[in-house]
């Protein structure tokens, strides 16, 4: 993991001192809320329905056990004993007090964490594949470049007042777990024929009220030119992006207006001028940062645990299910990647209480070299677990209630905080997630249904990624009542697509039965080996419409 040096520490402490002065000026009345708002929003502090919410960055989803313990401490000391992991691999504290925030930031800085730019019209937390450096299918580890971008984008003097927020995501695997096509800039790493790494650069993807799949602006970018090319994209956006309408201010709108070819010309003209500037990534800095991501001290040639693992899986069906859904292949033989599901009955998706954070940190130290990852599907990952210890770990997780074997399945629901917290929401998304989870408690049924992503947003801002859920649910307001609009066929991976609207919005009570009807239709139509998404793409939306709304005639009557 990356560790701060003296410069990183100094910058964060100077920023925190500046913010402390700003909070003092707010509290003693020198600044009113209107004047203070832009200042707090540069530092992740939102005023929500009931309280201030502080969003803390987890850079590219990577946490040490020490950092997780610090988050537990903050949850316990300054919040109501919990935090919520978000779709941007961050964590939000929902009940903080304004006067405590400078102390919270200072505590975070002790563990090399910040809330800088977790909101505001600037480059937000850099996100990346949660299995970076560990996945068996990975070509290049994107963490080194994620860290270079984190530093480059932090308190950028020119790009701190962009037209709108700006999100960058990276993946170094062919299977895209970071949804890079749904970001303002998406970076896909490839290897060329000489085995050297480079980036395919996508631009103009995003969700919100105008969802767009990103377009390739450059097929191949050498790593040394990463920062200058990103700077060229940002400079063109800063000058050309629309500022007349907040809903048309993201880069996707200007890319669509100008066309990707024109946008590329503008970027290339600018890039030509700056590519050989001081932005060039030096080999010394690349080496320095890379050293922080050296592999942990794996045990060479672990004894083959597969026979024992097979035996335990045969004996214990729940363990078997968990291995099938929550455990992923590791690039080092004898090790596994383990997912901890934060989708449990009775708890909002992504929520974790302080004691559980401490317990996960403990397990990370014992089983996984002290490293934890946060996924954009609001779960946690232990990156390096010896296969011979999987059973023991599973039992420990089960005691904590963190062994739900539903990763990638229907109840692994992404949900925004919704109207329970958020001042923008039209509808409460957490209770809908809860209804669906209660409806689908049969683990064998869930396993039968298999891979299916279900994403819920409480309003059209789409924080719950409903556009790219295989099943998407969007909360809408109809004459003061909450309704839910379903979409089908969305995906956020390398085959990214936007969901199609199914039909009229449903009342909350109708949603679980509608999901049931969709699932049954899929099961009756699927061919061998087809996932829900494959079947949907083959048969189209009609059979699902009929299943949910009935025959066209009765629909008209209703």
């Amino acid at each position, binding site marked *: 993991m990356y560790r701060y040096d003296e410069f*990183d520490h100094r910058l964060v402490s100077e920023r925190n001192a*500046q913010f402390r002065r700003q909070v003092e000026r707010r509290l003693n009345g020198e600044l009113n809320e209107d004047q203070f708002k832009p200042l707090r929003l540069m530092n992740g502090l939102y005023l929500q329905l009931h309280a201030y919410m502080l969003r803390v960055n987890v850079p590219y989803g990577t946490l040490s056990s020490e950092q997780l313990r610090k988050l537990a401490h903050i949850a316990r000391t300054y919040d109501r004993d919990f935090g919520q992991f978000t779709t941007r691999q961050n964590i939000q504290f929902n009940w903080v007090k304004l006067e405590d925030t400078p102390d919270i930031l200072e505590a975070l800085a002790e563990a090399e964490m910040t809330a800088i730019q977790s909101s505001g019209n600037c480059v937000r937390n850099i996100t990346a594949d949660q299995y970076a450096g560990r996945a068996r299918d990975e070509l290049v580890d994107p963490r080194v470049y994620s860290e270079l971008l984190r530093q480059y984008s932090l308190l950028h003097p*020119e*790009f701190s007042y962009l037209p709108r927020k700006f999100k960058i995501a990276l993946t170094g695997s062919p299977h895209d777990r970071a949804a890079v096509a749904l970001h303002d800039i998406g970076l896909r790493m490839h290897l060329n024929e000489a085995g050297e790494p480079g980036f395919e650069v996508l631009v103009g993807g995003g969700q919100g009220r105008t969802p767009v799949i990103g377009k390739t602006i450059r097929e191949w970018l050498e790593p040394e030119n990463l920062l200058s090319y990103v700077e060229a994209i940002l400079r063109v956006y*800063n*000058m050309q992006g629309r500022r007349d309408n907040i809903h048309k201010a993201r880069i996707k709108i200007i890319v669509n207006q100008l066309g990707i070819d024109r946008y590329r010309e503008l970027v290339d003209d600018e890039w030509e001028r700056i590519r050989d*500037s001081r932005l060039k990534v030096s080999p010394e*800095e690349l080496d320095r940062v890379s050293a922080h991501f050296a592999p942990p001290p794996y045990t060479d040639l672990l004894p083959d645990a597969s026979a024992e693992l097979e035996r335990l899986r045969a004996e214990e069906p729940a363990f078997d299910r968990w291995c099938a859904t929550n455990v992923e292949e590791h690039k080092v033989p004898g090790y596994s990647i383990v997912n901890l599901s934060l989708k449990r009955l009775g708890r909002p998706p992504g929520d974790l209480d302080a004691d559980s954070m401490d317990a996960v940190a403990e397990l990370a130290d014992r089983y996984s070299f002290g490293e934890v990852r946060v996924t954009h599907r609001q779960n946690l990952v232990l990156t390096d677990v010896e296969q011979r210890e999987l059973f023991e770990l599973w039992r420990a997780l089960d005691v904590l209630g963190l062994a739900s074997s539903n990763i990638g399945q229907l109840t692994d629901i992404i949900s925004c905080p919704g109207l329970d917290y958020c001042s923008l929401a039209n509808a409460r998304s957490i209770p809908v997630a809860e209804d669906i989870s209660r409806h689908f408690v049969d683990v064998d049924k869930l396993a039968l249904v298999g891979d299916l992503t279900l994403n819920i947003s409480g309003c059209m801002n789409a924080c719950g990624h409903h556009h790219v859920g295989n099943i998407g649910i969007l909360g809408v307001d109809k004459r003061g009542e909450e309704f839910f609009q379903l979409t089908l066929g969305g995906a956020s991976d390398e085959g990214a697509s936007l969901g199609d609207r199914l039909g009229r919005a449903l009342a909350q009570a109708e949603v679980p039965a509608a999901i049931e009807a969709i699932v049954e239709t899929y099961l009756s139509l699927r061919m061998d080996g087809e996932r829900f998404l494959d079947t949907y793409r083959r048969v189209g939306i009609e059979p699902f419409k009929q299943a949910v709304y009935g025959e066209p005639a009765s629909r008209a009557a209703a």
Partner: protein
Amino acid sequence: MKTLIRNGAPSDETFVSIGAEDELPAGMDVIVTLDRWRADRDRLTQREGLVGVRLQSDEPPELIAEDLEHLAVVALEFPAFRDGRAYSYARLLREQYGYAGEIRAVGDVLLEQLHFMVRVGFDAFELSSSDPKRDFEIAQADFSVWYQPGVDERDTAIELRHR
């Protein structure tokens, strides 16, 4: 009441802002709009007194790229502090067009932004403040380290690491 800060210190305003219809005051230094500059370019360059142009945030510097040798000041307007286009304009003026004259931040300029503005090439600021010199100094002291190269040539953290 706004105070002009130039090169880090309060400074007397020596330029007069001229509206679209205003007469040009004889012998005085003036700052004009882009439209006025275009309409009156010859008179403005031949008369006594320095001339500056004030660009709105939708008027990029390429519109005056050919004229910069005649301009003692380019004033960049912040219609609202959120409108960050002029950060890029200032940088392009310095780095792409090699402009060495005064680049002045005018309009809705927050103290919190001064540090960034200096780093992208502004060297003059119209500030609303009861103690502009003190505020400017505090803002400059906000940060002693940064990751990005600016137009000021000062070393970045990355460069300092490998000294």
